[in-house]
């Protein structure tokens, strides 16, 4: 094996520390824990999109041999309400069901078979109510109200300049309406966890979760418990992508454990249930109008956005906030008005998903940018470069870009790539019955929680008694590789190789609160805290070594693998020796960090309780090559380039992993993925007909880093987990337009939509 040995270094493509246990199958995910004497818990779901829950008949299920108990809303001890910001979602439905996945009863059984039988015997008595399934329906004056507060979760405006008046000053204006469907996260490890209650009442839970520390408060609030009587352990996740941020099984599982008499209880959502009850990427309808001067200077942008948040809020308002903040693209536009409606419907619940509201608006804004460039007879790349944000500019939300702003560099790098330079020759060489096109997208994605919620992390390090360095990591790793980056950071600063470094994964009893694994913040925020903890430990080890070696001062000391050396004399103190000498309490260090926020908060977006605005962004310029089959309408993406500004790259391998993966998810979103709904019922709740990209559907994605230096980031980095998801849909749509002269405005860009577009007259917008 040719893995690198020696101290870890920043900037080197180090294989991930978690890879070994994952390739051998040794890694234990939450779903892999099946202790002796374990019970199974599951819920009966409503099955209807909207109704009055008269009662739930549980008698037959309750008497089934092997059933421990059947619980309904009246058995929930606390508020029976969950939700990250807006607590509007019951743990068990009380008197109303608002979407097909609403849970009406919780069953505990000895085994899985009995559980399934019992769940089938639970009979909810639901009087159907009229339901609404799009923001349009939900906003009608006579629409049935889904919540007491009505159907509007949030209506908000972000504006600057005078968008209304500015269109009169434009030489070219384009206008279009776009629509995108719900997308499923489709992480391979479904929502699950295992829990037991200890004799002293402490609830211990191992859950596949992105936010273990927040989960305690979520559960405590819903079930009337002391949050500090709950311990959440968060092993590596089998994928998350936002869908495990917030309560999935947590409250139900905790409730089950409270009735299990100390026995361990497992709850695992099967794939179909994961579809029905899990959170989705919001379906959005977007109306855009954008105008520019004759020379290609963007001048005005106006849009109305309708986010379908489904039955409950989850992070709907915050998702829309981010979409709105990015609605104008990574451009300088003096006059902007973005209006948003986040609307309840009786559809499945929408919430956080990689790209967090931005994926949707990126499709619309990058499509209209191409339309506008065409109208002005400008090259789409030049047009974007001319308007791209630079440091010192004000973005479309009115925030001054004082941090690294690499969209210009991304576009320039893309413009020098053969996939762009050779596009004309490549298009001309299209085989018979195929048409070729090349499309671009310039995208960005904010990092961090934004204002109103401190984006903080606390890192702790320990010199163990056997002379190793242990990193207590308080933020989950859902697969993105932040843990590996943490080991690399510690290895770099402390000059240690991987074998000297240990990682403790999030555990609310052992690690410090460090926020959720989300928002492109994970490596940046925890990494900054870790840098501080490493420097503190280093200082401490130098000081203690000076004592051991009887040195006059700490000058001339250096960390080497497993020891500290006094360079002038060559004398050394091993970590083992230092560990033996120091009392346990002295063998540790702590570092903490809070992400900086925008200081010029614009006088707009007042409706947002948290999140508005952001000040750090990752940027990317994407290029898609497509070949469209004239006979079948099938789009094949034959080449893909993603140029990304994520600040400095800590690990090129990890960087590429994030770019490849986000682009693949974005291509799925562009081409095949959509939740098919019939009045709130999912018609494709499984991988047989919800079509995820396979190895045959994803091209050889080329990732190029256009490095900037983010001076606030650990080693100059920024988070790039999300930005890559935002490019593929607009890049492919623009490429299809380049190939066919037809603009698709509804995604996914299926063969039937392409064929329909080809049948219609030229330059007709297609919906």
């Amino acid at each position: 094996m040719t893995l690198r040995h020696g101290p870890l270094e920043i900037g080197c493509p180090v294989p991930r520390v978690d890879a070994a246990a994952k390739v051998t199958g040794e890694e234990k995910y939450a779903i892999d824990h099946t202790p002796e004497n374990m019970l199974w818990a599951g819920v009966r779901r409503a099955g209807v999109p909207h109704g009055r829950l008269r009662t739930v008949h549980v008698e037959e299920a309750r008497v089934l041999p092997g059933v421990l108990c059947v619980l309904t809303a009246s058995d929930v001890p606390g508020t029976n309400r969950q939700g990250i910001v807006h607590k509007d979602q019951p743990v068990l439905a009380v008197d109303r069901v608002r979407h097909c996945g609403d849970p009406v009863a919780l069953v505990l059984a000895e085994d899985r078979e009995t559980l399934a039988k019992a769940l089938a015997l639970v009979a909810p008595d639901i009087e159907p109510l009229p339901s609404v399934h799009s923001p349009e329906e939900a906003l009608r004056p006579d629409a049935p109200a889904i919540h007491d507060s009505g159907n509007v979760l949030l209506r908000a405006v972000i504006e600057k300049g005078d968008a209304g008046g500015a269109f009169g000053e434009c030489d070219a204006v384009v206008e279009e309406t776009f629509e995108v469907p719900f997308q499923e996260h489709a992480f391979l490890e479904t929502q699950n966890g295992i829990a037991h209650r200890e004799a002293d009442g402490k609830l211990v839970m191992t859950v596949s979760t992105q936010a273990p520390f927040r989960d305690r408060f979520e559960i405590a609030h819903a079930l009337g418990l002391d949050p500090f009587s709950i311990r959440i352990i968060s092993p590596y996740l089998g994928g998350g992508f936002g869908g495990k941020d917030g309560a999935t099984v947590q409250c139900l599982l905790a409730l089950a454990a409270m009735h299990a008499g100390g026995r361990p209880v497992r709850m695992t959502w099967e794939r179909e249930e994961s579809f029905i009850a899990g959170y989705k990427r919001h379906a959005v309808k977007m109306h855009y109008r954008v105008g520019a001067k004759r020379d290609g200077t963007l001048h005005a942008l106006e849009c109305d956005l309708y986010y379908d948040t489904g039955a409950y809020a989850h992070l709907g308002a915050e998702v829309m906030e981010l979409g709105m903040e990015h609605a104008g693209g990574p451009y300088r536009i003096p006059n902007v008005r973005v209006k948003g409606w986040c609307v309840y419907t009786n559809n499945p619940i929408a919430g956080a998903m990689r790209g967090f509201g931005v994926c949707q608006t990126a499709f619309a804004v990058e499509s209209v940018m191409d339309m506008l460039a065409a109208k002005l007879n400008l090259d789409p790349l030049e047009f974007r470069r001319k308007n791209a944000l630079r440091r010192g500019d004000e973005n479309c939300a009115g925030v001054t870009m004082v941090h690294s702003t690499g969209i210009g560099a991304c576009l320039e790098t893309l413009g020098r790539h053969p996939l762009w330079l050779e596009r004309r020759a490549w298009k001309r060489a299209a085989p018979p019955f195929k048409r070729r096109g090349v499309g671009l997208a310039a995208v960005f994605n904010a990092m961090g929680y934004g204002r109103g919620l401190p984006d903080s992390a606390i890192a702790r390090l320990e010199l163990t008694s056997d002379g190793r360095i242990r990193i207590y990591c308080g933020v989950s790793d859902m697969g993105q590789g932040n843990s590996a980056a943490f080991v690399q950071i510690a290895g770099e600063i402390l000059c240690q190789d991987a074998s000297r470094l240990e990682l403790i994964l999030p555990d609310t009893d052992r690690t410090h609160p460090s926020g959720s694994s989300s928002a492109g913040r994970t490596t940046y925020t925890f990494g900054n805290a870790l840098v501080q903890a490493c420097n503190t430990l280093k200082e401490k080890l130098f000081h203690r070594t000076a004592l051991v070696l009887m040195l006059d001062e700490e000058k001339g000391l250096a960390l080497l693998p497993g020891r500290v050396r006094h360079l002038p004399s060559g004398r050394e103190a091993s970590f083992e020796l230092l560990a033996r000498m120091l009392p346990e309490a002295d063998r540790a260090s702590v570092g903490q960090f809070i992400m900086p926020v925008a200081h010029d908060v614009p006088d707009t977006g007042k409706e947002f309780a948290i999140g508005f605005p952001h000040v750090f962004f990752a940027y990317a310029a994407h290029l898609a090559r497509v070949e469209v089959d004239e006979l079948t309408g099938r789009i094949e993406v034959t080449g893909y380039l993603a140029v990304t500004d994520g600040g400095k790259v800590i690990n090129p391998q990890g960087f590429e992993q994030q770019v490849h993966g986000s682009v693949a998810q974005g291509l799925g979103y562009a081409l095949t993925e959509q939740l098919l709904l019939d009045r709130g019922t999912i018609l494709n709740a499984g991988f047989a007909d919800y079509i995820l990209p396979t190895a045959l559907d994803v091209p050889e994605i080329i990732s190029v880093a256009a490095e900037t230096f983010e001076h606030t980031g650990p080693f100059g980095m920024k988070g790039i987990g999300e930005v890559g998801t935002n490019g593929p849909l607009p890049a492919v749509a623009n490429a299809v337009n380049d190939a066919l002269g037809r603009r698709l405005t509804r995604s996914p860009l299926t063969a039937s939509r392409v064929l329909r577009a080809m049948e219609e007259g030229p330059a007709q917008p297609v919906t």
Partner: protein
Amino acid sequence: MKLRFVLNGESVEIEVRPDRRVVDLLREDCGLTGTKECCGSGECGGCTILVDGDCRLSCLMLAAQLHGREVVTIEGLSRDGRLHAVQEAFMEHGAVQCGFCTPGMVLAAVSLLARQPHPSREQIREGLSGNICRCTGYVKIVDAVEAAARKLANGERR
């Protein structure tokens, strides 16, 4: 029934209901949790195992079907503490992210390389098209399988 089969090189005899799903038998009765269940309906390849050397989906098999067979799970792929060339290549080439598809993907690759020792990238993609990965975009998985094929061709272990 009394089920007899060879599991990761060792003969085993287990009392089990003949209709127990193989994925449950392996994960819950044998404690071999490296085999993952992701869809439960044969769509994703996450639960891939090798039965008499061929790729099989353990979520679609019943215990009785293993009788007299030779089964290899991800736990049985390394020998004498040494990883299989495919496992090493997955680590080295960054083919692992969340890792949940990894055991199935590795076994599918092992089976592919047994049938087709010198596959092109396109053939690798085709050979792995029954295994879904939601994290990697597949590029590095293809890189890893290509590298493993080279290593195996050079006679570096299985």
